[in-house]
C-alpha cells in the first residue's frame, strides 16, 4: 500500500494501478505503468512497470512532477467452463488453500491463495481429459494456519462425497507444511473409507512454468478417477524429476524437506506405489484397503487441548508440570533414540512423569523420525515405563501420534482405554514389522 501522501497525489492526478504515468525530476524522466507498492519497498517509493516489462522503484520527492498519460485497458479474462462427459468418471476437487492454489500478490509481496478451483482446471487442462471435474472451495488457508477445526470441516465434506455414488474419488488441494497432519486426521476421522481420498500440494507456486502442481494434480486425478484404493493418500513428486508421483499412505507420510518437490516421504513403510502423467498406476504394496460400496462413518471428534513436546539436553521436566497445570489433556513426548529422556539428578523426568501420568496420558515417540520406539532395551526406558509413560513398541512418528492422541481423546476420556487405543492399529498407522527398505535417508 502506498503512503497517504503518495495515495493523495495519485488521487489528484486520477491515476489508478495499471495507468501510465510520467515522473519527472530535474534531469530524468521515467514513464511506465503504475504498479502496486511492494510491501518491502521504502515508504516514498513509487513502483512503475516500464514498456519493456521491467519494474523499477523511484523515490518520490516534492520536486517531482507527476502526471497521468494513459489509462489501463482491462482485458476480460475468458472464464473457463467445465464440461461434463457422461462416459468419464467424476472426481471432486476440494480446495483448502496453500501453494497449489496460490499466485503472486503484489500488494502483499509474496505468494497468496488466490485461485478459484475453476482457475486451477484452466491451468491444468489435462485433468479434464481424465475425468469430469467437480470443485468446491472448503476454505482458503496456508497450511500453518490450519487447526483441528479445519480438519473436522474438511472430513465432513469428504464424508459427504464418499457417500455420493457418482463421485469416483476425491482430490484435496492443500498447503504442504502441515499436509501430513491433515492426512492423519482424515484417516482417523473417516471410518470404513470406500474410495480414494487424495491429498495433493505443491512446493513451487502454480504461477511459474516449473510448478510441481501440474504433475501432482494430474497424477492425483488419475488415481482418484480409477484406482481401487480406499485410503487417504498423499500424491506428490517421487523424485527431483517430473516423471512420476509417489502414492504415500497419508497416515505414514511426513514432509521431510523445506523446499524440494519430493519432500514427502513414507516413514517406516515403503510407498504404496506410483502414478505417471499418462495415467499408469503401479501398486508396489498389496496390503491397502480396497474400494467398496459400503457406507463411510464420520468420527471427527477431536480433543484439541493436547501438546507435542520435544525433549532436548538441559530440558527441565517442569515444562510438563506447567502444561498439565494449564489444562492440557494429553502429551506426546518426542524422546531420543528408542524413546528416552533425562533420568538423573534433580532434573530427572521420572518423578514428574509418575505424578502427571496419573492424571493425563503421556505418550512416547522418537525424534529420529524413522524407526520404532522400544523402551525395554535400556534401563532409562524401563524406568520411564514404570514412571507411567505409555507408547512402548510402535513406529508412529511424533506428528502422527499427536493427531492420534487428539482423536483417541475425542472418543474416550478413560486413560486405560486411551493407552490401549493408542497402541491399536486402526488405519495402518502402526506397521507390524519394520521392513528393511522402508528407510529413505536424505
Amino acid at each position, binding site marked *: 500500500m502506498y503512503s497517504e501522501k503518495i495515495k493523495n497525489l495519485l488521487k489528484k492526478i486520477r491515476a489508478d494501478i495499471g495507468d501510465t504515468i510520467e515522473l519527472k525530476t530535474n534531469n*530524468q524522466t*521515467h514513464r511506465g505503468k503504475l504498479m502496486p507498492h*511492494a510491501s*518491502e*519497498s*521504502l515508504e516514498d*517509493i513509487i*513502483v512503475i*512497470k*516500464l*514498456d*519493456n*516489462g*521491467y*519494474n*523499477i*522503484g*523511484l*523515490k518520490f520527492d516534492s520536486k517531482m512532477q507527476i502526471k497521468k498519460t494513459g489509462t489501463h485497458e482491462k*482485458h476480460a*479474462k475468458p472464464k473457463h467452463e467445465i464440461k461434463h462427459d457422461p462416459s468419464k468418471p467424476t472426481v471432486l476437487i476440494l480446495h483448502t488453500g496453500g501453494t497449489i492454489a496460490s499466485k*503472486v500478490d*503484489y500488494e502483499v*509481496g*509474496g*505468494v497468496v491463495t488466490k485461485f478459484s478451483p475453476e482457475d486451477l482446471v484452466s*491451468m491444468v487442462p489435462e485433468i479434464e481429459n481424465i475425468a469430469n471435474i467437480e470443485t468446491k472451495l472448503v476454505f482458503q488457508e496456508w497450511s500453518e494456519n490450519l487447526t483441528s477445526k479445519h480438519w473436522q470441516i474438511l472430513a465432513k465434506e469428504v464424508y459427504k462425497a464418499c457417500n455420493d455414488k457418482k463421485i469416483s474419488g476425491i482430490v484435496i488441494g492443500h498447503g504442504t507444511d502441515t499436509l501430513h497432519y491433515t492426512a492423519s486426521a482424515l484417516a482417523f476421522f473417516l471410518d470404513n473409507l470406500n474410495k480414494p481420498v487424495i491429498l495433493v500440494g505443491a*512446493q*513451487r507456486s*502454480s*504461477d*511459474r*512454468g*516449473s*510448478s510441481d502442481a*501440474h*504433475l501432482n494434480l494430474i497424477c492425483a486425478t488419475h488415481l482418484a478417477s480409477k484406482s481401487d484404493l480406499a485410503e487417504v493418500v498423499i500424491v506428490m513428486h517421487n*523424485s*527431483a*524429476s*517430473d*516423471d512420476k508421483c509417489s502414492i504415500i499412505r497419508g497416515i505414514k507420510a511426513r514432509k521431510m524437506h523445506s*523446499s*524440494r*518437490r519430493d519432500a514427502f516421504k513414507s516413514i517406516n513403510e515403503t510407498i504404496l506405489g506410483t502414478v505417471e502423467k499418462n495415467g499408469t498406476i503401479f501398486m508396489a504394496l498389496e496390503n491397502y484397503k480396497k474400494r467398496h460400496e459400503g457406507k463411510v462413518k464420520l468420527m471427527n471428534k477431536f480433543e484439541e487441548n493436547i501438546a507435542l513436546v520435544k525433549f532436548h539436553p538441559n530440558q527441565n521436566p517442569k515444562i510438563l508440570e506447567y502444561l498439565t497445570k494449564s489444562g492440557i489433556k494429553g502429551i506426546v513426548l518426542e524422546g531420543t533414540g528408542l524413546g528416552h529422556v533425562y533420568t538423573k539428578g534433580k532434573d530427572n523426568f521420572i518423578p514428574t512423569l509418575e505424578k502427571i501420568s496419573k492424571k493425563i496420558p503421556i505418550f512416547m515417540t522418537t525424534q529420529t523420525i524413522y524407526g520404532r520406539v522400544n523402551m525395554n532395551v535400556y534401563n532409562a526406558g524401563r524406568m520411564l515405563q514404570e514412571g507411567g509413560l505409555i507408547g512402548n513398541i510402535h513406529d508412529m512418528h511424533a506428528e502422527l501420534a499427536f493427531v492420534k492422541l487428539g482423536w483417541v481423546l475425542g472418543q474416550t476420556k478413560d486413560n486405560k482405554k486411551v493407552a490401549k487405543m493408542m497402541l491399536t492399529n486402526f488405519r495402518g498407522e502402526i506397521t507390524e514389522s519394520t521392513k528393511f527398505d522402508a528407510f529413505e535417508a536424505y
Partner: protein
Amino acid sequence: MLDYGKLGLKVGLEIHRRLDTKKLFCNCSSSMKSLPSKEVSRTLTAVAGELEEIDPAALHEKQRDRKFLYTIYPGETCLVELDDEPPHDCNKEALKISLEISLLTKANIPNEIHFMRKTVVDGSNTSGFQRTAIVGLDGLLNASFGNVRIDTLALEEESAQILRTENNGNIVSYGLNRLGIPLIEIGTAPDMHSPQQAREVAEAIGNLLKSTGKVQRGIGTIRQDINVSIAGGNRVEIKGAQDLRMIETIVELETLRQKNLIEIKQELATREKALKRKYAGNCEIVDLTNIFTKSESKVIKNALSKKDGTILGTKLELFSGLLKKEVQPNRRIGTELSDYAKTQGVGGLFHSDELPNYGIAENEVQEIKKNLGCNENDAFILVADSEPIARKAIKAAIQRAKTIATIGVEKEVRKVNADGTTSYMRPLPGAARMYPETDILPIIADEKIISEIRKNLPESFQKKAEKYQKHFGLNKEIANQLIHLDYWNWFEEIASEVKIDPQIIANLLVHTLPDLKTRDNTNIDKITKDDLIDCLELLKNGKITKDTIPVILKNIVRENISADKVVERHKLEKISDKEALEAIKQIISSQEDKNKKAILQKSMDALRGRLENRRIVELVEEELKHGDN
C-alpha cells in the same frame, strides 16, 4: 553493395557479459570446472503473467511437449539451480560491479532495484523464468559517428547451457553449471546505421566492461544479440553472436534478408493485380498419405513407418516459383517456412519448387497438385511425420507463408548460423513475459554506496596506457598492447606483488602468453595470475632463466601442477656456466664430424631452459673456437 542509408538500416545491440563472482542467487562457484554427476528430468508449462496474459514466446513453446534433462555439477549446482530451493540474497559483489558499469555509462540508477521474472520456457532455466533487474537507465556511449544511447543495463542470471538435443528437439539436455552466473546486459538504442558502426559499438562496450577487471574472460563469457530493422521491415532479434568479427556479416546478411522479403511481398502484390486474384491465405490442410503408399522417398518411407505416420500438404496460392527465391546465401523462402515447421519437431518440409527430387517422382507431384487443386501460379508444401506433429508443423509453416504475403518481415527472434546467416527461433517476446520476483526483496540503491562506487570508478584504457608509460616506464607500443589483452588487469596486480623490472612482466603478458597459444596451442585460459607470479619469483631469485618460463607454463597447463613442481619434475633449475660447459664438451667429443650446426642443435636440446639460449650459443662457440686451438 547495399546502400544502408537508403534502406534505413537501424541496429541496436544487447551485450551480455558474465561477471567474475560467485553465482547471483546462491553460493555456487561460477568457474565451470567441475565434472557432471547426476541428472534430473523436468517439464515446463506456460503460465499467465502479472497482466493475466500469456507471453507469445511462451505460448509458442507450450505447443510442444518437451522434456528437459538437467545435469548437476557438484560445487557449481545446488538446489537453487534445480529450482528446488528459493533464491538466496543477491550477490553483493555482482550488484556492485553492475552499478559500477552503469555509472561508467553515465546511466541513472533506479532508487530501488526490483528483480523480475522473465518468462523463459525453452528449458534454459529450471524455474521457467530468468531473474533480471534494471540497474541503469538512459546511459550514453561516445562513438566515432556520434553518441549511442544505452537504454537499459540489467543484472541477470545466465541461462543453462544446451549440452545436446534428441528426438528433433523434443528432449533437450542442459548443464546447470552455467545457470545463475551473474550477467550484465547492456542494451543500446537502435542508433547504429551500418554494419561497421555496430561492430565499433560492440567493441567499445566490450572494452568498457573489460576496464572494470571484474568480468569473466574466455570463450562464451560474452554474447551479443543484435536487433536489426530496415524501412518497411520489422525488428528482428538475432541471438548469440559470440565473435566480434561476425557482427558485420550478420548485420549485412539480415539487411539483405529483410530487403528480399519486402521484395517478395511486393511481387505477390503484383501477381494479385496481374491475375486479378486476391491472395486469400486459404490453406486447407489435406491428408495426402494415399498418394505415397508406394513412395521411393526415404523421408516419406521413414515418416510412414512411424505411429500414425501421415503426409500432409497444403496449397500456397500465387507462390509458384517464389519458394526457391534466395533471401540469404543458400537460404530460400522455402527455408523460411521450413524453419517454422522445424520448431514443431519435424525434420523439415518439401516444397513444389524443389520437386520432383528426394525420391518423390513427377507422377506423385502431379497427383499432389491435383489433390490440392494447384494451378500454374500456386505452390505447395508437404510435411511428413506422425499425424499430430505433422499437423502442428504444417500449421506453423502456413502461418509464416501468410505473414510473408501480408507482413513480409516478421518480428521474431533468430539464431546465428556458422556462416552469419540466421534461422528462425521463436516469436519476439512481449512485456507480458515479466512479473515480479517476490522471493527477492527490492534492493535500495543507497546514495552513499553509489557515491563510493562513483569515486572509485576504473580509469579509461587511454588513461591506463598513459600511466603504464609514466609510472612503469613502458614504451607506448607495449602499453597499448597491454590494454587490449583480456587479462590486462594482471599487469598492475603482478607488478605490485613481484619486485621485478615491469618490462619483463609486460613482455610475459604481451608476448609469451599469446605465443604459447598461437605457436604451441597451449590453453592459456588455464594459466592463473598466481602461476605467473610464481614464475617471476623463481626468475627474480635466480632459480630459472627467462627462457625457461614458457616451458614451465606449458607444463603447468599440461600437468596441472604448480611452477615449483614443474621445475622439480623436469629438472629445469638454472645451471652454472661450468656445468653447461661440461655438457657441451661431452657433446662435442661424441660428435665425429664437428659440424657446428649439429653440435649447436644437440646442445640446445640438452640445455634448453636451464640456461639462457643466448648463453648456450656463446658457450658452444667459445668451446669450438677453443677446441680448434
